[in-house]
């Protein structure tokens, strides 16, 4: 084939490149490369005059391809693509040769560096000849959203979206909404009622015209891609009947929350054996019932709260569950106000009083005369039944760090602050919506700091304690953030998809299905009827794994085709 007319532009980058690479020589050498119609060396290609030069040459010489030898494409590829676009050349017909970061800056032999620069330019020239003009795709954004989980995060996200006038499908596995917060009495540090918070939200959600609540339901399948998901939901009727519903959604928010650590696993606390050793959630039930009492129905004189049960231990979970410390202090307040004659002790490792109002709350807990006992990280208190003569039912033995003594603490009621764990179904949920879990099983956000609500799968967001242990304000914030992100997408109406993605040549695909398992984004869909595999371009992130794997060369990586890379190989090898 006749090579397309190509322009080569060698940037001196002031002296950054020129001091080690003989740019004029490279430009000279380039001029005799296949298809090269014009070849220049210039001080700053990225400067406005530089970009105008490119645009001008495209017009004057009718260039069909452009090669810019300059810095890293990770730096200025967008710049030069724009420059070409202004001159009416498809941006994907531009190729860069990195002769700065990977040549002039890393070598000290001018001759060798210049030689290398020539090779890199040749590679770019040969490669760009195989480039094709590419257009970005746009797909419609379905404005509906699927919210999985009806806890504080789920209901919040649902309301946020519905109040903005968008339709929300809220799927809850339990018969009722509210999740774990629904099991709590008051909340730290302001001691306001969780019930009041929830009931208001729940009634609003249930009555909201734009929220379709499905309780006793679970997500069965999620097909499609961002803006165009198809969700299959199984709704269990009261009589055990199961009805399947199919809904179209553009986005998914996973708010599946957490489950509490099983206290029986930490045997040294005697949970399950001693009747008056209870978990924080069992104690919340007492508080909600408005009566703190022992199993025997008596009023406890000594109440002990044990922190970090299942958290921050080598034995169980290494992480901090974040809400227990303040909840424990809350118990001190609630017990004291219910039973002024009682004595409350807090057996803790470290007091984590982060967050708004929490330090003050910790201070105030001294006013109710809470006795704090500190045990060492990696150690654990041991609970045993008290001896007959004692004025208490149980004794907690603690290697107390602040006194350096081994202390026996009297107790009639022991509350174990059980930590948070990923739900038992977290893995299956992750698989359903194609997101990943970290080593502890929490769902992974797309960036721990800069993008804590999105996931590696476009259109799937996470909010609440399913991502990591979280308190109510953080869960709510994350839920609203996710909702906000979705509303932003909805308001655009359309989604733009990068022009770089893989495509299957169906005249070549034999349906061997080798590629199906390869894609980390499940972007390859097998059409059983046609016996062909398709790439869902909106899901494809253009890694090219399937392309390299397809034994029939039936999959093509746009902008990274075999032909382009072969040309590049031939180019660098002169």
């Amino acid at each position, binding site marked *: 084939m006749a090579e397309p007319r190509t322009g080569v532009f060698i940037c001196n980058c002031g002296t950054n490149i020129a001091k080690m690479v003989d740019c004029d020589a490279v430009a000279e050498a380039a001029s005799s490369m296949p298809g090269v119609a014009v070849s220049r060396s210039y001080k700053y290609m990225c400067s406005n005059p530089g970009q105008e030069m490119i645009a001008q040459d495209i017009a004057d010489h009718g260039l069909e391809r452009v090669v810019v030898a300059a810095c890293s494409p990770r730096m200025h590829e967008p710049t030069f693509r724009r420059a070409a676009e202004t001159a009416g050349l498809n941006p994907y017909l531009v190729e860069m040769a990195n002769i700065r970061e990977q040549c002039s800056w890393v070598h000290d032999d001018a001759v060798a560096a210049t030689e290398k620069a020539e090779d890199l330019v040749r590679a770019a020239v040969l490669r760009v000849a195989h480039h094709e003009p590419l257009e970005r795709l746009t797909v419609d954004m379905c404005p509906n959203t699927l919210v999985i989980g009806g806890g504080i995060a789920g209901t919040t996200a649902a309301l946020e979206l519905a109040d903005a006038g968008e339709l929300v499908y809220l799927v809850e596995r339990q018969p009722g909404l509210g999740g774990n917060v629904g099991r709590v009495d008051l909340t730290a540090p302001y001691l306001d009622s969780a019930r009041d918070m929830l009931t208001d939200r729940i009634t609003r959600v249930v009555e909201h015209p734009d929220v379709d609540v499905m309780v006793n339901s679970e997500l069965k399948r999620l097909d499609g891609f961002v803006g165009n998901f198809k969700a299959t939901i199984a709704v269990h009727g009261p009589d055990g009947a199961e009805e399947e519903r199919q809904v179209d959604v553009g986005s998914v928010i996973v708010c599946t929350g957490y489950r509490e650590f099983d206290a029986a696993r930490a045997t040294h606390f005697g949970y399950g054996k001693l009747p008056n050793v209870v978990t924080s959630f069992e104690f919340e039930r007492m508080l909600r019932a408005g009566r703190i009492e022992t199993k025997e129905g008596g009023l406890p004189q000594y109440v002990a709260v044990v922190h970090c049960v299942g958290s921050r231990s080598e034995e169980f979970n290494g992480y901090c569950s974040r809400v227990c410390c303040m909840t424990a202090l809350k118990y001190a307040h609630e017990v004291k106000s219910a039973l002024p004659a009682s004595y409350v002790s807090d057996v803790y490792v470290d007091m984590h009083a982060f967050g708004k109002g929490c330090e003050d709350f910790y201070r105030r807990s001294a006013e109710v005369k809470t006795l704090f006992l500190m045990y060492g990280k990696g150690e654990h208190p041991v609970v045993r039944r008290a001896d007959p003569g004692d004025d208490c039912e149980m004794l907690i033995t603690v290697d107390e760090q602040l006194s350096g003594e081994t202390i026996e603490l009297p107790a009639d009621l022991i509350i174990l602050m059980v930590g948070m764990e990923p739900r038992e179904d977290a893995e299956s949920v992750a698989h359903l919506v194609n997101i990943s879990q970290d080593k502890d099983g929490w769902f992974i956000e797309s960036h721990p700091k800069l993008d804590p609500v999105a996931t590696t799968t476009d259109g799937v967001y996470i909010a609440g304690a399913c991502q990591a242990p979280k308190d109510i304000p953080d869960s709510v914030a994350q839920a609203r953030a996710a909702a906000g992100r979705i509303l932003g997408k909805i308001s655009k109406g359309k989604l733009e998809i990068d022009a770089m993605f893989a495509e299957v040549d169906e005249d070549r695909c034999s349906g061997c299905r080798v590629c199906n398992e*390869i894609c980390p984004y499940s972007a390859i869909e097998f059409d059983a009827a046609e016996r062909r595999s398709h790439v869902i371009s909106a899901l494809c992130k253009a890694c090219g794994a399937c392309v390299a794997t397809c034994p029939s060369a039936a999959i093509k*990586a746009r902008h990274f085709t075999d032909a382009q890379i072969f040309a590049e190989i031939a180019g660098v090898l002169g």
Partner: protein
Amino acid sequence: MTFEPKIVGFLCNWCSYSGADLAGTSRIHYAPNIRVIRVMCSARIDPTFVIKALADGADGVLVCGCHPGDCHYSEGNYKTMRRMPLLKRMLADFGIEEERVRLEWVSASEGKRFADIVDDMTERLRELGPSPVKMALAGDAGER
């Protein structure tokens, strides 16, 4: 004069290519023998590319990707990890020395590491001498 090998490097865009860029921005010097070809993910590196590079006259091929577990595409580098062992065995059957093809994990922050790898590989290949492939393919033209 000593023999100067030509190395073709296939680097993933997100970790290794950035790592190589970092070597540049930190002005870490290394041997000019390598020619880098950028791919989005090491998983895009078809074994054919490696063989093609050797057939086209490369004295060595360096394949770099994100460290296992850190792949930008979450699992891409595992494909590379699976392909290389058998590829190396096969190339050995063709009589190509093991050192000529090398797989390394280089993160975006490991500019120094990348430079060291290139220097080390260049040195080994200098000792090893030119690739037998080119000579074998050129050699038989006349004599059958």
